[in-house]
């Protein structure tokens, strides 16, 4: 029971970190970046090759993944989404799906479809013993990373000038421009942060579930998107809460109901929540102004 709970929180923490990327980009650019999950996969591969091919220490590999994914996020935004800034949201959505396929196929071409076994980068770290139960270091680090990211992002958006500008852009781009805020640069920055977080999520995910292939990011990506909607899309604490709840429900579903049905349970819960509270758990109603 407790072991399942801890596993759930750990998996949920990965979802939460991915969901933060979805929710921030949605909050600011008002678009669903369906390629977000595939950025996770790229992060996984970069870390994998940094360790196995280059022989870099794990910390450096994580850093390399963050740098590459951040740059990738900025490039994707510039090339694929920026030209569509005034297009309908459907066009942007379809483009995002296109970018997702592009990344998966580029990965297939570059790194082949062979499954890579991701090294356990936290091997040397001690775990935690809790009575009869052993908690793996990757679990502890995932949960800690989630908390640190959450606190940092909250401080960033409430205390710094740039973070506040981000919130201003998310509310009203026109008014934000009138303040002197460069909206395009703010959107770029949001993509950069979201993609950097995706890299971290990629490494944590691949360490916990050590198989890496070009489609690795898809399912966690969709689930994290679900988590973001579950918690209330656009809300940072909502992404956190949604992610963790989703992880726990998934693990409990696997343990007590059925392994095959666990995903169905996850999505059923989402549907119920949205029926009862369409804005998600912590989402706020957007008041249409006259």
């Amino acid at each position, binding site marked *: 029971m407790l072991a399942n709970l801890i596993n759930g929180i750990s998996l949920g923490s990965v979802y939460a970190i991915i969901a933060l990327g979805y929710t921030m980009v949605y909050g600011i650019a008002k678009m669903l970046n369906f390629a977000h999950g595939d950025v996770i996969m790229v992060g996984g591969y970069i870390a994998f090759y940094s360790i196995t091919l280059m022989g870099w220490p794990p910390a450096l590999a994580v850093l390399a993944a963050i740098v590459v994914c951040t740059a990738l996020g900025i490039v994707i935004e510039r090339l694929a989404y920026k030209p569509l800034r005034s297009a309908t949201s459907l066009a942007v959505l379809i483009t995002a799906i296109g970018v997702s396929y592009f990344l998966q196929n580029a990965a297939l071409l570059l790194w082949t479809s062979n499954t890579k076994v991701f090294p356990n980068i936290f091997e040397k770290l001690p775990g935690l013993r809790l009575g009869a139960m052993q908690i793996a270091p990757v679990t502890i680090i995932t949960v800690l990373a989630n908390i640190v990211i959450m606190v940092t992002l909250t401080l960033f958006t409430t205390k710094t*000038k740039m973070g506040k500008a981000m919130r201003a852009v998310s509310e009203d781009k026109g008014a934000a*421009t*009138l303040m002197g805020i460069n909206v395009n640069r703010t959107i770029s920055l949001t993509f950069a942060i979201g993609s950097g977080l995706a890299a971290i999520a990629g490494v944590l995910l691949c360490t916990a579930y050590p198989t890496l292939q070009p489609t690795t990011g898809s399912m966690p990506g969709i689930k994290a998107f679900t988590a973001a909607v579950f918690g209330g899309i656009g809300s940072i604490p909502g992404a956190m809460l949604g992610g963790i709840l989703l992880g726990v429900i998934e693990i409990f579903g696997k343990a007590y109901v059925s392994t095959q049905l666990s995903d169905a349970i996850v999505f059923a819960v989402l549907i119920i929540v949205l029926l009862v509270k369409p804005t998600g758990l912590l989402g706020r109603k957007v008041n249409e102004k006259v």
Partner: protein
Amino acid sequence: MAEMLKVEDLHVYYGSIHAVKGISFEVHEGEIVTLIGANGAGKSTTLNTVGGLLKARSGHILFEGKDLHGVPANKVVAEGMALCPEGRRVFQHMTVLENLEMGAYTRSSAEAEETLEKVYGLFPRLKERYRQVAGTLSGGEQQMLAMGRALMSRPKLLMLDEPSMGLAPILVQQIFDIIVDMNKQGTTILLVEQNAQMALSIANRAYILETGKINHSMEGDAADLLNSEEVKKAYLGG
């Protein structure tokens, strides 16, 4: 008086609709100038174009001699021109203080702090409510916040788009009193209003916009226009 803003032969289109058809006007330092006219005459379009939110097809927007045609709004602010938009558009989920801080986005934090005291002096209500979320303010307070926020960028020229919209008469009076105060403290004002009576009563000069053009037979001294039969008939309800 030195010329601060000079707009020359401005043409603005929305798609294929020719909304502003070659208008020219100027604002001198220290003045309150108002653009009045009916709904759809192009008042807000003109203001949004001068402020950089819309791009003119052709024409010149000379601010202190510098042509700002095509300069985006976020750069226009830094030049010393602020636009307080129609419908207030305060950041609803941010606090009063955060809204004001955003107004000072182009300024250093020392400048922002200094200006904040001045804005609080003009709008004591904002100081009382600085921690309140802007969306919970009343309409009049939100208008004050929008004007205070625009002042935070220390504009030489402040453009106000329909500041009286949706406010009770007593609040309209209060807002117009504050506009006069701001002007006395050295901010030049370009005011767009449907409430022509109020606008003309505080302005030095006025232009009348009719379907995208300025009616040059009725421009000039605001007090004269307020008494002109023609203006009374068309814009002051008899």
